């Protein structure tokens, strides 16, 4: 039986009269990369908001490593080992790159500075450690935001369209980091529109539409599902996805 690190059951979120999530279930296997695809407005980011504690108005259950985290505050969820990035970069603009990383380390982590410098060096941003977040390019900001969540060595990382707005060079660096960390055992859940990325990285894919999971399974089974064909589109990208 698979070892699930993140289990979401019947998560429902209503905004006024709009039901953004209609009882979503999600099972994320420890050490896997899980993709979430779906059209705009399907509830992908809302699901991340609920899981990470940024939105505490949902009902249902979110278990992280056997511990209920639904309704917990984001800092507590983070301390439990679940970190996330945002759809649009949210680096701290008036903090330096180094400070952006150190603030995300665990409170009594004496090695935070050296770890931050090591991470920056790995993505060739070490020359920027004293640069303010606001002075970075958008792609660099996204990369720093990604490095930031690595500072606490989380067991699960949620990435919300991490490659959006990132140039090809930095994008390749980002995916290399994801592969490397996944190889070391970190679990990823990725919202992504790029089917090539989903195809390349994810062992399991969930398709969300109008707040519901309409398909789930391996990338091949999802690709052949008639509902998800409409979501993932047709043509070369879809063929690569199905291959």
């Amino acid at each position, binding site marked *: 039986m698979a070892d699930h690190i993140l289990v979401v059951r019947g998560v429902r979120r209503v905004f006024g009269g709009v039901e953004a999530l209609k009882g979503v279930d999600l099972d994320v296997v420890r050490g896997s990369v899980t993709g979430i695809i779906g059209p705009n407005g399907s509830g992908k980011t809302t699901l991340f908001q609920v899981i990470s504690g940024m939105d505490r108005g949902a009902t249902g259950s979110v278990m992280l490593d056997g511990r209920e985290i639904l309704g917990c505050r*984001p800092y507590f969820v*983070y301390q439990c080992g679940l970190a996330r990035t945002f759809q649009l970069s949210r680096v701290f603009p008036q903090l330096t790159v180094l400070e952006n990383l150190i*603030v995300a380390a665990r409170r009594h982590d004496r090695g935070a500075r050296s770890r931050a410098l090591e991470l920056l060096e790995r993505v060739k941003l070490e020359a920027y450690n004293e640069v303010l977040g606001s002075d970075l390019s958008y792609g660099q900001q996204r990369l720093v935001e990604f490095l930031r969540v690595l500072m606490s060595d989380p067991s699960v990382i949620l990435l919300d*369209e991490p490659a959006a707005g990132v140039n090809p060079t930095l994008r390749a660096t980002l995916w290399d980091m994801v592969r490397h960390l996944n190889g070391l055992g970190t679990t990823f859940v990725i919202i992504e529109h790029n089917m090539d990325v989903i195809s390349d990285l994810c062992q399991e894919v969930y398709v969300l539409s109008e707040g519901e999971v309409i398909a789930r399974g391996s990338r091949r089974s999802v690709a052949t599902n008639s509902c998800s064909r409409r979501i993932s589109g047709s043509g070369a990208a879809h063929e690569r996805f199905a291959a």
Partner: protein
Amino acid sequence: MLSKHASLASAAVLVVILAVAPAVLGEYYLSFLTQLLMMVALAQAWNTISGMTGYVSFGHATFFGMGSYAAALLLPLGVPWWACLIAGALVALALSVPLGFLTLRLRGPYFAIAMLGLNEVARVFVTLWVDLTGGGSGITLSPELLPSLTTSYYTMFLIAVAATVIVAAIYHSRFGLELRAIREDEGAAEMVGVNTTRDKLAAFVLSALIPGAAGAVLVMYTSYIDPAAAFAPAVNIQMIVMVMFGGSGTVWGPVLGAGLVMGLREVFWAEFPAAHLMLLGVLLLSVVLFLPGGLMALFTRRKLVRPEVAAGPQERPDG
């Protein structure tokens, strides 16, 4: 930024000058310096919560006023002046915990307005409790109960130094980094493990202690207090103006801001009595418009982004 050695050397020189000032200055200048040091302390207190976290308070005079009244009520009972000072700080501390818990749930202008309202509530409360506070007539203290001007000066000097040391310690600590992250983006800060409620409350409580103590010293220095003086909205405005002038969220900005604004006000008042407030207003407006980071921004230098490292064209996010 100013180098660490330059900052420490400047601080040491300033402390020595201020420590020997009573030996060489007359009563007028000593009195002026006492007020200046009080403003340094108040500006640093405001900086601790508003400069660091971005929660702009228009109500810190509440703690100042409460500290004044605590001292004014205890001194006639025979309580030593230094104990009144501690009492002033403790009253402010006791008040700040529930107030911070309630008001820090609000953000932006809502917090600012809530704090402004709090200041008015405190003023009306003290005015109406005539039996205890003397109402609008205030409390006049007998001169024999009060410490000398030199003692008041040195006490205010120690409070200002303590306030600056507290701000410096916070600024360079992990706690300070968390506060600055809250100022930048509270949601993102919480998502990287910052317990924002705890940090904001701690900063708020620390920021209340100093005005409480300064208020207690002020009443010993002036020997009189009334609600209009204790809870004057002008005190709130002065704190904000001095921090903005010097540099919000920095260690030395409030010191610089308080020193220059108080000094210039004194000079303008002496040289241009009819237009001194207008001149000061124009100067403050100029700094806010052209140096939004305050005067400390002049001493800040940033490393430039090396363009060759930023490889490839940038794309726009697609949603």
